[in-house]
């Protein structure tokens, strides 16, 4: 909740290029990320953008592929709001918000119905076509929500997927040809494979405050935004997807400006995640 004066103050500030915490309209809050934070998962990451604090985990297990895509592995997404992360996260409303976030994240990574495209090579997750494949369970948990939750989650999930190691699974034919072939999992960590996360985009939320585009909104600023645009941008600065939230429309010229802003900001954000992952490897 926010008073009309605060809304006016924030909008007037944006017009002058000033924000409540002293940032410019196109500056992010400090991002800190660490990977490999949980022992029980195949991959995990913890990420903070200012006051927003999220955790992402990836669990890898063997499962059956969908009948439509027998040659591909599977992905499943879930996002949880911690009830104390924000006042609005309690009860039914929190559930709606988290399923909305899970869907948005899934759309930015999942390939099309045919299994082609997408940001992850799901074909490499196939073990025995039509019978067995690796299933990636991607879970996000929002510990504290202070704006730009989707941005934080998309970065954390990218970092967690980058941290994920998949054991080597080999198919061993059964002695009797009529039997199902057996799947042998090599416990040797040196034979684990990593996922290729190069193409996974980061989703940036750009708000329109007082008619001006602003990146990385705090919870307070999100309340003042007339419109929100979520832009998925990959490492090369290419736009992979756009969704819009909130009521007000966006002027086409402003839209172009917002997209350009997202393209400029994405590489810097992705670097912060890469730095965290490379630090973990050298450590």
């Amino acid at each position, binding site marked *: 909740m*926010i*008073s009309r*004066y605060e809304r006016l103050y924030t909008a007037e500030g944006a017009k002058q290029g000033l924000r409540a915490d002293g940032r410019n309209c196109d500056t992010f809050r400090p991002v800190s990320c660490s990977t490999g934070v949980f022992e029980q998962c195949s991959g995990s990451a913890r990420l903070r953008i200012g006051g927003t604090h999220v955790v992402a985990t990836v669990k890898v297990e063997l499962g059956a592929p969908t009948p439509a895509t027998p040659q591909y592995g599977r992905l499943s997404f879930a996002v949880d709001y911690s009830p104390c992360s924000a006042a609005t996260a309690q009860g039914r409303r929190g559930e709606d918000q988290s399923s909305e976030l899970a869907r948005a994240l899934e759309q930015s990574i999942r390939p099309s119905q045919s299994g082609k495209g997408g940001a992850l090579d799901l074909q490499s997750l196939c073990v025995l076509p039509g019978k067995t494949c690796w299933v990636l369970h991607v879970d996000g948990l929002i510990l504290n929500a202070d704006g730009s939750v989707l941005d934080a989650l998309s970065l954390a999930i990218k970092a967690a997927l980058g941290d994920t190691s998949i054991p080597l699974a080999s198919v061993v034919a059964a002695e009797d040809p009529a039997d199902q072939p057996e799947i042998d999992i090599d416990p040797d960590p040196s034979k684990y494979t990593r996922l290729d996360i190069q193409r996974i985009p980061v989703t940036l939320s750009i708000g329109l405050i007082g008619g001006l585009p602003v990146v990385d909104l705090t919870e307070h600023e999100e309340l003042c935004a007339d419109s929100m645009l979520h832009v998925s941008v990959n490492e090369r600065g290419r736009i992979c997807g756009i969704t819009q939230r909130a009521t007000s429309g966006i002027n086409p010229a402003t839209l172009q400006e917002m997209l350009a802003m997202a393209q400029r900001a994405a590489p810097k954000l992705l670097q912060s995640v890469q730095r965290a992952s490379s630090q973990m490897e050298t450590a």
Partner: protein
Amino acid sequence: MGPQPARVVAPGDSVYQLPEKGEVRVGSGIHQDGQHLITCRPGLLSTTQSGKVWVAGRQKRYIPQVGDCVLGRIADKHSENYGVDINTPFPASLPVLAFEGATRRSRPNLQVGDLVYARVTAADRDVDPELVCTDASGKAAGFGAMTGGQAFRCTTSFAAKLLSQPTPAILTALGRALQFELAVGLNGHIWVHSPKPTTTIIVTNTLPKGEFLSDAQAEMVVKRIVSTMQ
């Protein structure tokens, strides 16, 4: 019972034995168990010459007490009163007639989300807290709706420190260097307004930093920030 240097206490500590005669005023964080005063939360045990005892802790949730000045946000509008969020476990109620010069005909027109500076007149664990926007003599005296500006949160202990005497160095230094209005609510909400948005931004970002600075450090921080601004 004489004054003692503040000491760190944990919940369950027996801190005083009640004297044979005289008066002890027991504040938050302490409860009485027979002849003993026992703490029920961690913090610094504070006392005054006049026999007040309480535990000051870095608490974010505000527990209302009669006479406290708080900064609240209008959460509901009813015909007779406003529901105000003052960061308490239950919302407070502010009668529409509890403003200076308010009558049935002319009443303040506040909207949901607006900020008000108010005084707590009733605080009981079983009843919702009550607020008024006047001083004891019915004058506005600075209470009422806050127009313009920006609000932010701090711990209740820092808010109490800002309101206590002597005024903390960070606040006097900021006040000397810049021109701004400030309303500190004991519930850990602070409102800042100034003619220039840059000043408001500086105050909202500098003031919370002063919580753990010594006087000299606070002076230096303010001097540095103000010099970069000009």
